[in-house]
């Protein structure tokens, strides 16, 4: 318990001082019972960013979406050799290492290069695959670009936080390097001529070219050490026993050339079946799941946010003794703080930060974070609603001998809530849209699902158009419904 508290305090501190300190603090605090822990648990949780075929990507298998690719096969091999079950968790590439350090996942396999900088914060296995870099371009530009040096005055894109991104910056001159979170976005940018090339690993480039007739691949000719083009599995810093065990599997993979002989062809098959039917209708289930989660998050968050909002607004209006004054200050500080920080940061803080104390699933973290956020806004609506109730109402109630509490509860609040109904409705509609932020921690709401469909179909725009329509249908329906109830309430 004490250790947890220390960890939490360390996190609070490091959030202020920068993430780099965080990594060392938490990593060194962990002691090495890592292998025993995983075996006791019976599962090995692997984090990956599934938009990087053929390393890892989403495929529809028997109508169900799952994460496949050669990295998943590597993960499965490691898990099998450890005698445990593999659980694959998807999240954005940027979040992977934080998830590892905060114990959200046991292992990261995501085409990740064991760079010296990363080695400072996590422990890597031996490399299981030695790749190289290509640059994907539009086929129509094939004569123009030869390698990395042909892009003077042009723009190359690469996945933010990736080795390619850093190397593209270092090893080109006169070339702009644009970072984006997902490779599907980069390809989309390429096809809409926002950028002229996308640097990525060779197998990925081959997969994209094989699945999209408009694209071509050229060699990158980056000057790179072997470690820059290799992929290894990452574990929490200091989990030596686990790394050693995993190394046995990795060495075997290397010796038997399993990646090239078995894993890559298998992944390629998924890519084939996957791209046969890229119609959006084919993915209705994925979109439906997205709608479901978006609505769950929104409804729960408005509900809990409302309860929190009532409490906060009452606390903000408390007048009197020391206790009430302290309460008012606290509530005011909370509201100001929440309204003054981005919801995205709050979501990450709840998922990764509180995750150090209690292991919350992504969905629960998302709902908690958005409820906490929305509570602050709803508190202000309620305060406004209370202030809009005529003073005469309070005076009438007080003149009848009602205490201030009774007056608030039976006379003012019911009227205030009626007044703020439209604002609450707006908050609901805003949250339908803003709940998309939880996609960064891997909750399969609409945006997340659309990203899956995009990397699945290699179609950049269609899924965006689909969710745009879905969002509109959701918000429009919601606003009609709310209007209807509002009118009904006014008739009473």
């Amino acid at each position, binding site marked *: 318990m004490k250790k947890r508290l220390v960890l939490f305090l360390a996190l609070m501190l490091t959030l202020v001082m920068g993430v780099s300190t965080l990594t060392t603090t938490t990593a060194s605090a962990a002691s090495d019972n890592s292998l025993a822990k995983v075996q006791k648990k019976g599962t090995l949780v692997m984090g990956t960013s599934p938009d990087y075929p053929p390393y890892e990507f989403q495929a529809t298998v028997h109508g169900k979406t799952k994460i496949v690719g050669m990295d998943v096969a590597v993960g499965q091999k490691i898990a099998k050799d450890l005698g445990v079950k593999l659980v694959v968790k998807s999240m954005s590439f940027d979040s992977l290492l934080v998830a590892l350090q905060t114990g959200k996942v046991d292992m990261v396999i995501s085409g990740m290069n064991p760079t010296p900088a990363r080695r400072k914060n996590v422990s890597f296995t031996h490399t299981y695959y030695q790749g190289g870099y290509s640059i994907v371009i539009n086929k129509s530009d094939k004569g123009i670009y030869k390698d990395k040096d042909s892009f003077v005055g042009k723009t190359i894109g690469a996945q933010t936080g990736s080795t390619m991104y850093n190397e593209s910056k270092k090893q080109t001159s006169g070339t702009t390097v644009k970072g984006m979170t997902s490779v599907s976005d980069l390809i989309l940018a390429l096809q809409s001529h926002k950028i002229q090339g996308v640097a990525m690993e060779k197998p990925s480039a081959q997969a994209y070219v094989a699945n999209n007739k408009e694209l071509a691949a050229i060699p990158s000719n980056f000057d790179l050490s072997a470690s820059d083009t290799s992929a290894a599995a990452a574990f929490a810093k200091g989990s030596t026993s686990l790394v050693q065990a995993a190394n046995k599997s990795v060495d075997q993979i290397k010796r038997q050339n399993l990646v090239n002989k078995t894993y890559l062809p298998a992944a390629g098959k998924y890519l084939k079946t996957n791209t046969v039917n890229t119609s959006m209708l084919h993915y209705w289930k994925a979109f439906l799941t997205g709608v479901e989660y978006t609505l769950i998050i929104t409804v729960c968050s408005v509900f809990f946010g409302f309860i929190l909002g009532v409490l906060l607004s009452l606390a903000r209006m408390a007048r009197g003794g020391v206790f009430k004054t302290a309460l008012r200050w606290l509530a005011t500080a909370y509201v100001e703080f929440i309204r003054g920080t981005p919801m995205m940061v709050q979501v990450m803080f709840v998922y990764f930060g509180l995750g150090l104390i209690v292991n919350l699933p992504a969905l629960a973290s998302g709902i908690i974070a958005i409820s906490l956020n929305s509570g602050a806004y709803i508190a202000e609506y309620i305060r406004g609603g209370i202030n809009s109730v*005529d003073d*005469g*109402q309070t*005076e*009438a*109630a*007080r*003149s*009848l*001998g*009602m*205490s*201030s509490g*009774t007056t608030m509860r*039976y*006379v003012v609040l*019911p*009227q205030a809530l*009626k007044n703020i109904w439209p604002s609450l409705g707006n908050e609901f509609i805003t949250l339908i849209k803003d709940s998309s932020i939880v996609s960064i921690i891997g909750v399969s709401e609409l945006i997340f699902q659309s990203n899956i469909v995009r990397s699945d179909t290699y179609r950049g725009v269609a899924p965006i158009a689909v969710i745009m329509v879905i969002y509109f249908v959701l918000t429009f329906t919601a606003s009609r419904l709310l209007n209807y109830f509002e009118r009904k309430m006014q008739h*009473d």
Partner: protein
Amino acid sequence: MTKPIIEVKNLAKSFGDNQVLKDITEQVNPGQVIVVIGPSGGGKSTFLRCLNLLEHPTSGEVDFAGENLTTLDDKRVNELREQMGMVFQGFNLFPNMTVLENIKLAPMKVKHVDDAAATKQAHELLKQVNLDDHADAFPTSLSGGQAQRVAIARALAMDPQVMLFDEPTSALDPEMVGEVLNVMQELAKQGMTMVVVTHEMGFAKSVADRVWFMADGYVQENNTPDEFFSNPQTDRAKDFLSKILM
């Protein structure tokens, strides 16, 4: 001599620099009907609101049944407020409740009367103000005269010893003034102690025991209605009467 139910001693009230009540010392005896009259802005509402502590006096004291309200804690003030019903110019009915619920709320939440008893009492009070057929109506559907009668019934539901009225008919269309004044007159006949701020001369003449003329932060005259209207003492009162009788 009967003991006064309300005693006001050297009452003063300021809002910032604006000294609204300067020095008022008066008393109300049980069963008396006092009409407070005076120019607008003269502090009549403020005075009335000081009587049940909706407004806290700046200095001086307000005694109710021998207890100095200005020194009591919130709980005791709430208890004493039950005994002073108040009727406002703007009715201040609770718009989200039916007429019946408006009347039942305070007895149930403050006195913890059970629902059946509160309902029974509410119907009796509604009969008294001739509105029992509107028990289930919402306030917005009532005329001003009806709303004000409901407000009177609501105040009576707490069994007050004193009723305070702040211009109860000023917001009403002329044809509705009568129905409200009749209810008030009935109440006076039954012996209710009343302090009424009003400009209704007829009501003052026929119902009031005393008229207090209030202007510039003082009660300038305290007299019987006959004396006050036929023979005002101060120039201030003469001037006021000549204006409203025109």
